Structure formats: C-alpha cells, structure tokens
C-alpha cells in the first residue's frame, strides 16, 4: 500500500497524480470466510479492522448492499464525545474517543480528528444537577469533563446568547478533548486499512438470507451468490431488525429517522460543538465552514432516509434563538438517516440466540462517535466470546430489567 | 366575593385582524354517552341547545355547545350561571355514568375578527381555513404554533378561539404578531 504523506503528494504531483493506486480493492466474493461482517459502515469496517489488528483474523469479508460508508457513517453530524453518565457507556465511548485521537496515524490516512471540545448546555436547574452528576461520574470513569459557568461558556463560544428569553444558559458540561472528525474519511480509512490486510470489502452485495444448521450459522445468501462463514457479525444500524428477522430472532429496537442539516459555508465563527438538549438542537462548524446542525428523531417507525420538516423547524428555531448570528444564514441541505433505537436507548453488542451470529446495533443517534470503540469491543466479543467493553450491552439485559439509561442525566445521546 | 379576572384582563389588538379577550365565560366539560337521550335532555335543559354533530358547534344566546370528542362536550354559558347549570346537569344525569367539570377558569377565550381573521389564524394552525373549507358552525381542535387550541367561526366571520389559561399571553402575542400590519397574505377575505 502506497504511503500517504506531503512528500508523496508532491512526488505524485510531478506525474500529475497518475501514480496513485486504489485506496481499497474491489474483489469478487470467495466461497467461504472465517468471518463475515454484514454492513460496511464505520462499525462494520472497524470490527473487521480490529479482528485483523488485535486478533490476526484476516480471512474476513465485509458485505455492503450499497457503497461503503453510505449509511449513517456518511449522514451524521460527526460529533465525538464520551461524557456519558453510566459506566458501560463511558467505558466504550471513551475507548472510542481515545482511539480516534491516533486514528489518522494508525491508518496513515487523515480522518481530521479535531479535539475542539464539546459543551452540553444546562438550561434548567434540573439539567445543572444532571450534568454535575455526570461530571462526578466521569471523574471516576477516567473521562475528563468539567461543569463550567455561563461566563466560561461565553468565553468558549462567543457567539452564544446566554440569556435567551426562554431558557437562560446556567452552565455547561465541557469536555475539552471531545470534538469532530471527517465522517467519510473514517470509513475510507478503515476500508483502506482492511483492504491492506487482505480482507475483502464487497460493495453492492445485499444479504437476502442467513443459513443456519442446528442452531448454528453456516453462511449467507446474497445477490452475488452464497457465501459460507463460521462467524457472522450483523452491523447494519437501521436495518438490524430486518436482518435479525432473517436469522429468526427479534430485537428490542425500532427504526426511526433522524434529521440533520447544514447551512451555507461561512468563515470560522465557532470552534467547538454546542449541544442544547432542552431546546433540542446541536451545532458545530465543519472545516468547509458549514454550520452542521442536528436535532431530534421522528416519532414513528420509518425506513425512508427522509424526515418530516417540522423536526428541522424545531431545531432551527432553537438555534436561531441560541445563536442569533445564524438568523440570516441559509439552510443549504437537509437530510435524514435511519437510526435504530433500543428499549433503553443504549446499544446492543451481543451474542444472539443463533450460535455464531453476533449483533452490533441500537446506537440510535450516537453511533459515529462510537465507531472505533465499538469495533474494538465487538471484534473482541466475536473473537473471544466476551469483552469487558460489550458485556453490559447484551440482549439479556432487557429480560433482567438491567437497563443502561443515559437519558437520566438529561443527556440525550446525540 | 372578589372579582374574577381573566388571564388577558381585557387585552385587545387591532391590526389586520382584531384580537381581543372575549372576557369571562362559563365553560363546562361534560363527558358521557352523547347518543343517550338522558344526555341530550340534560344539555337541552341546561343551555337550551341540542347535541352538535361531530366537530360542530351550536350557539345560542350567550351559550354554545362544542363537540370535543365522541364522549365529550364543552358547554359555554354566562360565567355567573355555571354553578346552577352544573347542578342542573348533575341532577338530570343522576344514575348515569358521566363527568361534569367546571373549566371556566382553565381556559382563555379570544375573539379574532375582521377581514384578516382567516389569514391571521392560518399563519399559526395547520388547517385549511379557506372560505370553502372552513365554514361557520364548524369546530376545530388543533395546534396553534406550539400549543393546543380550538376554535369555531360565527356567521359574522369572527373566530371564537380557546386555549389553556396558562398560555394566554403566548396565544395573544402569536395572534398579534400574525396580524401585524404589512403581513397581509392576500388569499382570504
């Protein structure tokens, strides 16, 4: 694999960039693999990558019905943070965040991780107490956060309106090492690395059936033929319920549309991510200069990658009030993604009733930030049968009533 | 006894439409079997009006009966008469399964009148308010911007609009903003 560097770019420039090779191969599927991962989004690719990197398992195929990174990996608002309340969440998200910090170097592919900091605004007394609780929890979890004063918020985000007529800003939970990354690059970087390890990324390959023999998985049927495997990892976000259906079990999830939008690009005016959960909006500025804005999910099951306009409306309303500066900016583009939401709004990384089938889903609106950690833990789960990062996220918790509820600290999981 | 005060205390705004506090009004929630003769009789004798058809409003002299849902009516009457009308209803419905509650103070009651009335309301409610679609006597419960609201139209083209008391200021300011001069849309009225 050709090494990327400024020098390489300069050298190629002299030959008008004719010498660059493919970032990842495009092979035909083999008859059998040790492991098949369904879904070449961030989580699927990351799982494959760490299967190879940490466990030497490289006879792996990653099947993607569309184009790699084309699901929620390429549709989210790229926020990376780990200031979660509950231990299991904090563990996997912090693992993820720390992996993100060095991902560009691991890959030799710039995913533009930008630790610009994330503020979650506290706009009611209840939120203040909730975030103070989170700050305490984080301190014991090894996650560096602090609860900051309104004045400090203003310092970090000069364009914010602290005393809006409705919800004054009473403080915020600040994670300085949180930030953003270039979402497509994360998928592409993992894909390039997996391909370099000899794994097969097979795009435009849709799984239409899952074959089992005496309660054990034997392979999958696809539009490009049958492919056998010993282990199968389902990592397909919004379509998990559909895949589980093929494997003959049901999941405690529902699929809904989440919306996001961007403004036209403007010169830098905000150097961190701000989340305002009380008024349902969050915003950051991309390197291109667009204000990247996210909001809530539709209230009903939906597999169209569209959302209803009024949700965008609610979000924009909140942000115009919180950041008067954006009032005269324009919405450039609005889109939706399908997210799978579980009974406790926390993900599922678990064995399944079918031997050899593992499922990674239910990230709801919080998937992108978890990609490396999720891949790391899920790879371990698939390779070794259990993983400290995943053990609390099993399907059994819904039977036992052992939920991992993040909404309790008013921290909506975006 | 002290003087009762409406949340808007007589507020009024004149713009494309006139927005005004409709003043103290008696309002009684009646839940029961609207198809039963007992309820029909009780309402008839309480406010002298029939049971309106689905999503209709029947009005009389200072009284009205509004169809709220398949098992609920809202009776409008003079504020001072609420107690006796409730007594009458409860008397008439004795032995029936019903619920009567005084909600006169739980609501704010507004009038939106003038040529701009339809457009003023159509800026806030996701309802077809064209002359053809929304005619006098119809009663509509819906959303006005961010709060629930209900209204009907009288022959004179005045909207009789009800919201919860606590959001009276919000509702008034919404309507006022919608009726600001210069905001005429030019499709209705």
């Amino acid at each position: 694999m050709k090494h990327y560097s400024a020098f390489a770019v300069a050298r190629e420039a002299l030959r008008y960039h004719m010498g660059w090779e493919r970032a990842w191969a495009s092979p035909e599927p083999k008859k059998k693999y040790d492991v098949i991962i369904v879904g070449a989004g961030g989580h699927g690719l990351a799982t494959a990558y760490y299967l190879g990197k940490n466990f030497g398992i490289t006879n792996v195929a990653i099947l993607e019905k569309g184009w790699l990174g084309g699901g929620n990996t390429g549709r989210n608002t790229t926020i990376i943070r780990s200031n979660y309340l509950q231990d299991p969440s904090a563990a996997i998200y912090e693992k993820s965040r720390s992996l993100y910090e060095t991902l560009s170097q691991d890959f030799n592919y710039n995913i533009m991780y930008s630790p610009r900091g994330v503020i979650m605004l506290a706009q009611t007394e209840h939120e203040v107490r909730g975030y103070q609780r989170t700050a305490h929890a984080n301190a014991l979890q090894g996650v560096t956060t602090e609860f900051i004063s309104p004045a400090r918020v203003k310092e970090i985000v000069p364009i914010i309106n602290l005393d809006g007529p409705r919800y004054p800003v009473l403080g915020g939970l600040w994670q300085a090492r949180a930030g953003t990354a270039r979402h497509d690059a994360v998928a592409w970087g993992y894909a390039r690395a997996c391909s370099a390890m000899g794994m097969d990324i097979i795009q435009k390959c849709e799984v239409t059936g899952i074959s089992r023999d005496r309660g054990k998985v034997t392979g999958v049927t696809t539009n490009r033929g049958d492919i056998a495997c010993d282990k199968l990892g389902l990592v397909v976000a919004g379509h998990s319920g559909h895949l589980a259906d093929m494997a003959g079990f049901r999941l405690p999830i529902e699929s809904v549309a989440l919306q996001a939008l961007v403004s036209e690009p403007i010169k830098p005016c905000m150097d961190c991510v701000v989340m305002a959960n009380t008024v349902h909006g969050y915003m950051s500025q991309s390197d291109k200069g667009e204000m990247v804005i996210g909001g809530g999910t539709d209230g009903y099951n939906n597999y169209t990658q569209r959302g209803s306009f009024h949700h965008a409306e609610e979000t924009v309303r909140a942000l115009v009030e919180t950041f008067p500066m954006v009032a005269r900016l324009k919405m450039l583009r609005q889109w939706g993604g399908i997210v799978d939401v579980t009974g406790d709004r926390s993900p599922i990384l678990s064995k399944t009733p079918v031997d050899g089938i593992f499922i990674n889903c239910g990230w709801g609106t919080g998937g992108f930030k978890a990609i490396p950690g999720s891949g790391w833990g899920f790879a371990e789960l698939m390779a070794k049968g259990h993983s400290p990062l995943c053990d609390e996220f099993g399907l059994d918790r819904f039977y036992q009533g052992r939920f991992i509820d993040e909404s309790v600290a008013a921290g909506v999981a975006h | 006894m002290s003087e009762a005060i409406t949340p808007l205390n007589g507020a009024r705004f004149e713009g494309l439409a006139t927005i005004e506090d409709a003043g103290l009004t008696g309002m009684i929630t009646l839940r029961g079997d609207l198809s039963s003769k007992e309820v029909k009789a009780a309402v008839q004798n309480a406010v002298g009006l029939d049971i309106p058809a689905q999503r209709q409003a029947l009005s009389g002299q200072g009284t009205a009966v509004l169809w709220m849902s398949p098992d609920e009516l809202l009776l409008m009457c003079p504020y001072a008469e609420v107690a006796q009308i409730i007594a009458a209803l409860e008397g008439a419905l004795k032995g029936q399964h019903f619920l009567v509650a005084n909600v006169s103070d739980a609501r704010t009651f507004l009038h939106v009148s003038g040529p701009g009335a339809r457009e003023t309301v159509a800026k806030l409610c996701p309802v077809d308010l064209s002359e053809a679609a929304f005619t006098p006597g119809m009663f509509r419960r819906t959303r006005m911007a961010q709060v629930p609201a209900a209204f009907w139209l009288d022959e004179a083209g005045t909207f009789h609009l009800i919201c919860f008391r606590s959001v009276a200021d919000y509702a008034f300011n919404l309507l006022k903003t919608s009726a600001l001069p210069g905001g005429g849309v030019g499709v209705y009225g």
Partner: protein
Amino acid sequence: MLILTCPCCGVTGEETEFHQGGEAHLKRHGPGASDDEFHTYMFAKENPKGVHFERWRHNNGCGKWFHAARDTVTLEVYGTYPAQTLEPPQDIRDAITAKRPGWTWRDFA
C-alpha cells in the same frame, strides 16, 4: 410530513396534530407472565420494513387513541381504526392485501 385521519373525530390532519405511541395489538402481560412473555410484550418490537400496525393519539385534537396500518417504507397509510379492538378489521386487511398480494396478518417471523 404524514397525513392521518382520526377515526374518532374524522379530522384529516398533518402529523403535528398526532403522536405515535408504538406498536399496536400488543397483548399486555402482567403479574404471572413469564420473563419471556413480559420481555416480548415490552421490548420485542416488530419494526417491519413494510406494513406496521401502530398506535396514534390525536393529542392536538380530540385526544383519542386510534390505530393505523402504515407502510414504513412507502409511508402509505392503509387505514386507521379505533383502538378498541384486538385485531385489525377485515377491510383494513383487505386494503393491504390488495396492495401487497400474499400479505397476511401476523406473517412476520
């Protein structure tokens, strides 16, 4: 932006007048039920790509709950009907089969 017709008050209104309340026709499992039954009742959702029977409340309207048969992929609404029923009425099922030959009630895995 969906349009729904409330079978209780007859209003045809936009989504913002309504509130979705999850899957319909769930059998409540109370005390005495097994962990499995209770889990299924609470969490194992159908979440189909296709026909979904769901609960809606006309919260910015008559306040009544009702059921809707809606396609989660095309968003087509096959019909709405009162909540006081244990199964979708025949006319709704017929409307669905007309559009999706071979479809039957409770045909999911």
